Structures are given as structure tokens and as C-alpha cells.
């Protein structure tokens, strides 16, 4: 392979503008037709706007297509097919990856993807990385959380696809009771249990020689009568995923603090006591 080739795709990246626009139109028609015919949510949205696949004849027609807002996705998730609702454009068994938005501005938005979706995400990043000069002989370090948050994974996979050596996670893993603990693992467990809200708070502390982990979570109003069951499932899942035991506190919805910026939900009080 020619490492000096400046383009990841020398055909597409040097296409004359008119041919590029023609291609963009065809691709939009394809994806719009797919969403319209495979997703109840999208079909209903487009019908309410009075636009159907055969109406998209030129790029200008795209203005007629309504956008999908995050709030819409939050409304449908949790419904059947659980947990994505009817926005899915493929059968549920074709979903191979679950990720979600960060939850910075509210309830995280779930993102189900197929294997092909991730091939495509990585492909998009390959264009970027190749144009920036990354080549198979490079070693790449991407300093992100490697958790359920959707961002940057495509960059990781793209670097692998390019043939780079990708150096993995080096983050906020800490040792508690002699066991390595990734705070993101707690988040994944909490947000995977039906009946719990997305907010939580973890406090690691030390009394004498004994280390403790206190986890506070919020139960949703509709699940108030299932607290015992939820607590049991939470403890089981936490032990399975982190190999640690927690002091759990189930709080009412709205009890825990909300953050407008990236939440600081993990507090380690041990270091303060030794300072």
C-alpha cells in the first residue's frame, strides 16, 4: 500500500462538485427511503410533515424533511422493542452495540447500532485520520473513557482499521478493597437497571483499615413499590461487574444533585484523609 497517497478515497475526495451533489442526493434518497419503510417512528414523523420518499427529487427537497430532536428520542426509549422504541430501522436482533450520549443535558439518549453502522462510523473517521497524516506505522493513543458513552469509539476503531497500533485505556481506574474499580462500570450497571433514574453518587471512604463504597441511586416514581427487588438486582449486578460490595441507598427521584456540566458523581474521600 502506498503510504504517500494523500487521500483515503482518491475517487470520492476528488470528485467534481456537480457529481458530488448528485451522489449526495442519491445517498439521501436511499437513507430516507430506508428510514421511511423500516421505522414506524420515522414514517409517522415524515407523514405528519407530508413528505414521502418519492417527494425527494432534488437536494432542495431535503428542506421539507423534519429533523429528529433529542427530546423525541427520549420520549420513545424504554418502549417496545425495549429499550429503543419504534425508531429502530432494523430488527432488534441485528443490533450489536449499545452506547448512549453522556447525559450532560439530561437523560442519556440510547444509541443502538449494527455491526455495519460501526463499520461506517469507523470509515468516516478513517477519512479524517488519513488526511491528518495517520499511517499504519503509527502508534495512536486516544485518551477517552472507553465506556458506554458513544463518543470517540469510532476514532479508536478507525485507527485500528488504518492499521495503527492503538494504545488503550488509561483513566480513572482506582483500587478499592484491593480490587481495581472503573467508575464507569458502576454507571453502566445503574443505567442498565429498569426502575432507576440516571443520576447516582458514589463515595469511597475509609474508616480505620476498612474501605467502604457508598452508592446512592434514585428510584423512578413508577417503580417505588419495587425498591427491594431493584436493590437486590443492583447489588447482584454490581458484584458481577465490579466484584465489590456496596452500601446502597435508594433515594426518591430528584434527591441527588443535578449537574449542568459533566457530572462529578464519583467521590474518593480516602486521599483527602491521607493528605
Amino acid at each position, binding site marked *: 500500500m502506498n503510504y504517500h497517497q494523500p487521500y483515503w478515497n482518491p475517487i470520492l475526495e476528488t470528485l467534481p462538485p456537480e457529481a458530488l451533489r448528485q*451522489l449526495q442526493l442519491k445517498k439521501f434518497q436511499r437513507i430516507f427511503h430506508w428510514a421511511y419503510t423500516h421505522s414506524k417512528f420515522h414514517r409517522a414523523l415524515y407523514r405528519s410533515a407530508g413528505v414521502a420518499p418519492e417527494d425527494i427529487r432534488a437536494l432542495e427537497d431535503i428542506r421539507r424533511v423534519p429533523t429528529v430532536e433529542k427530546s423525541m428520542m427520549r420520549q420513545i426509549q424504554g418502549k417496545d422493542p425495549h429499550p429503543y422504541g419504534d425508531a429502530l430501522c432494523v430488527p432488534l436482533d441485528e443490533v450489536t452495540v449499545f452506547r448512549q450520549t453522556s447525559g450532560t443535558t439530561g437523560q442519556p439518549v440510547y444509541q443502538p447500532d449494527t455491526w455495519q453502522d460501526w*463499520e461506517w462510523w469507523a*470509515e468516516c473517521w478513517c477519512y479524517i485520520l488519513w488526511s491528518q497524516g495517520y499511517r499504519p506505522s503509527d502508534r495512536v493513543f486516544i485518551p477517552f473513557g472507553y465506556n458506554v458513552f458513544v463518543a470517540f469509539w469510532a476514532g479508536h476503531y478507525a485507527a485500528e482499521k488504518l492499521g495503527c497500533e492503538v494504545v488503550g485505556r488509561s483513566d480513572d481506574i482506582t483500587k478499592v478493597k484491593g480490587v481495581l474499580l472503573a467508575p464507569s462500570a458502576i454507571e453502566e450497571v445503574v443505567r442498565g437497571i429498569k426502575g432507576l433514574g440516571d443520576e447516582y453518587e458514589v463515595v469511597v471512604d475509609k474508616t480505620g483499615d476498612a474501605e467502604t463504597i457508598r452508592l446512592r441511586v434514585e428510584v423512578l416514581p413508577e417503580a417505588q413499590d419495587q425498591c427491594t427487588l431493584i436493590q437486590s438486582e443492583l447489588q447482584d449486578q454490581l458484584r458481577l461487574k465490579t466484584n465489590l460490595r456496596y452500601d446502597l441507598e435508594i433515594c426518591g427521584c430528584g434527591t441527588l444533585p443535578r449537574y449542568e456540566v459533566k457530572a462529578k458523581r464519583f467521590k474518593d474521600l480516602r486521599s483527602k484523609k491521607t493528605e
Partner: protein
Amino acid sequence: MQPSIDIENLNLNIRSARKAVEELKRLGENFPAVARNAERMLASLKMLEINVSDVMDPGGIDPST
């Protein structure tokens, strides 16, 4: 100057590969190790089609695939 690229030959080989892998997937109906690897190969083939075949013949893009 960019070296010339034989896009027609690329496209012919991509189409040929898709036929072969779709046949593999069909033959692997009772052989998960074949079927699932063929499925992953189809996802990679889709990237080749996006990168090459679609560009060569945008009029030929099937809206249902």
C-alpha cells in the same frame, strides 16, 4: 499527479465478492462460524460499495438497500 485508478475493475471485483460472501452466508445457515463471519464480511463489503460502487454509478443506488 495522482496515479490512475481502474475503478471499473474495482467495482467488478466488489460485486463478485458480494456474490461470493452472500453465498457463503447462505451455505452457513447451520454453521454459525461461517454465517456470522460472512455477515461481518458483508458489512465491510458495504464500505467498499460506499467508497467505490456508489461513486461509479450513483444512478444505480438501490433505495431499498
